[in-house]
């Protein structure tokens, strides 16, 4: 096979071309990954909650931060038609001084232990007593607080020591790692003073059918995705992230297309020789496209490996949010390969129309 022999005998040239493809593809993937990472930090903690709908206070404008529900609201929501299960969830952001002079905000969620709102631990055990806390992996990476250690959470002007009993994998909420305490402990963290009149929860996590957009006295229900989109700043952020992604894909694909177009055009004299001695057009096109396919595909694969290595490195440093999903990786690799092949196909087509003798003279 001519295409393969050429790659084998011109390792340096093809290596460099593959390297360039890999770098461009890497760039596309990184833009996508950084965008997705930012998105994740905005609220995977909410998305990974184990329900399909959320009930907010109707005056909260779908903001978890501003939403406050009373006992009556919660009972009312739980009893609403179509609701199969409902459990209250509280939210408060607290600053945790996890080491002398080292502090970070934690998105603290209050859940009823044993309810479906309590995330499953990946390590340790579930909540069973007061003053216990589950911490997200992101928190462990950040503060290195392990199981059995204490986490001082602020209550009023004091702090109260919570014992870490389990580690969960729920992600971030509002760009803060999540931690989980019992709903009662959350009430203590969120509100001091008079017991009466304290909100019972921020939102209610629901499972049910046909409850989307349901409203009651002082509350409203939306899907979890709708709730995610309404997290402050997420909508604006998502459109920025998407614009970056699509621009990255578009420009990257174009650059690779033009790159292969030019590279193939440089082979015009070789293609002229082959045509002159009777190579059929289909032979030239298949060989040309096969070569580009192999180079673009290897470039794309190298970039995926690079991206995964970067992800692991960045994740362990925990300063840059980054995330990939298979779809994003497959999409960008697909665009790279297709862009390259289209570029090559266009130039092969152009070369095919030149008289071979003239093509041969264009060295």
């Amino acid at each position, binding site marked *: 096979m001519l295409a393969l022999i*050429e790659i084998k*005998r011109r390792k340096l040239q093809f290596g460099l071309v593959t390297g360039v493809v890999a770098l461009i593809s890497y760039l596309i993937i990184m833009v996508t990954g950084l965008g997705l990472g930012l998105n994740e930090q905005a609220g995977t903690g909410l998305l990974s909650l184990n329900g399909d709908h959320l009930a907010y206070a109707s005056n909260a404008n779908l903001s978890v931060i501003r939403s406050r529900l009373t006992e009556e609201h919660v009972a009312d929501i739980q009893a609403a038609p179509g609701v199969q299960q409902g459990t209250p969830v509280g939210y408060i952001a607290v600053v945790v001084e996890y080491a002398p002079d080292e502090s970070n905000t934690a998105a603290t969620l209050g859940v009823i232990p044993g309810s479906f709102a309590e995330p499953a631990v990946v390590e340790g055990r579930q909540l069973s007593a007061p003053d216990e806390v589950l911490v997200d992996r992101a928190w462990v990476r950040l503060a290195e607080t392990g199981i059995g250690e204490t986490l001082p959470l602020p209550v009023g002007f004091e702090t109260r020591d919570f014992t870490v009993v389990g580690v969960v994998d729920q992600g971030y909420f509002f760009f803060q790692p999540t931690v989980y305490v019992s709903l009662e402990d959350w009430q203590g963290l969120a509100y001091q003073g008079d017991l009466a009149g304290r909100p019972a929860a921020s939102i209610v996590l629901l499972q049910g059918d046909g409850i989307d957009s349901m409203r009651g006295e002082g509350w409203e229900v939306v899907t979890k995705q709708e709730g995610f989109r309404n997290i402050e700043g997420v909508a604006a952020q998502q459109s920025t992230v998407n614009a970056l992604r699509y621009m990255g894909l578009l420009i990257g694909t174009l650059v690779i297309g033009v790159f292969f177009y030019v590279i193939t055009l440089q082979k015009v*004299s070789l293609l002229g*020789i082959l*045509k002159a*001695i*009777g190579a059929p057009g289909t032979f030239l096109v298949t060989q040309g496209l096969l070569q580009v396919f192999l180079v673009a595909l290897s470039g794309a694969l190298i970039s995926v490996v690079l991206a995964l290595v970067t992800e692991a490195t960045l994740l362990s440093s925990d300063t840059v949010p980054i995330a990939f999903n298979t779809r994003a990786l497959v999409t960008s690799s697909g665009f790279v390969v297709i862009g390259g092949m289209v570029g090559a196909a266009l130039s092969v087509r152009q070369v095919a129309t030149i*008289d*071979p003798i003239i093509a041969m003279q264009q060295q």
Partner: protein
Amino acid sequence: MGILTLRDVSKSFGDGPHRVDAVRGVSLNIGRGEMVSLVGPSGSGKSTLLAMVGGLLTPTSGEVLVDGADVAQFGGRERTRYRRDRVGFVFQGSNMVPFLTARENLLLVAQFGGADKGALKRRADELLEELELMPVANQLATQLSGGERQRVAIARALMRDPVLILVDEPTASLNTELGERVVDALAAEVSGRNKACLMVTHDERMAARADRLIEFRDGRILNDDRLDEGAASG
């Protein structure tokens, strides 16, 4: 009717003030078994004429008939087959595929389909032997000397046993003795068979070994002489 007939063939390049009339109304008939030399000053249109006969350039006007069919009228597929099966072209500057060895350059034509690969392999060995290329058969084209490259180009042209052998300056890098042997090999290839060879050369001694000598000037035939002392006969 011979193997090749040209009827009032012309070729111009470019337009307006940049127009070059490379070939002007050439008519010619070449019969079976003929070895024909084409001589003429540089720029007189020899390569252009050869390219039109080989189906590599379309004439501006006129007919190029090979076995009665007009090459200029061929469609894409017919033209490819014509180049592949019926013409053996040795280009001026012996164009090799640089990243292939001498033998691979010969076997390249086996990848275009339409022939028995085993037979082509044997043919390649035969030709490498005949043109004294065996010692360099596995060297990359870029590592061959000019003369070796020219002989590889000739061997490649002969691979598919073409009816028409078109040769542009085959002996420029060869010493007299080797050049004569190459020309004689070409003459022997066509002599007495349903084949013909048209060879462009600057070397009078080489030209004189053909059966017929055509002199070209300014895109026209100046002289067309039958030679008695052709290579095939003596």
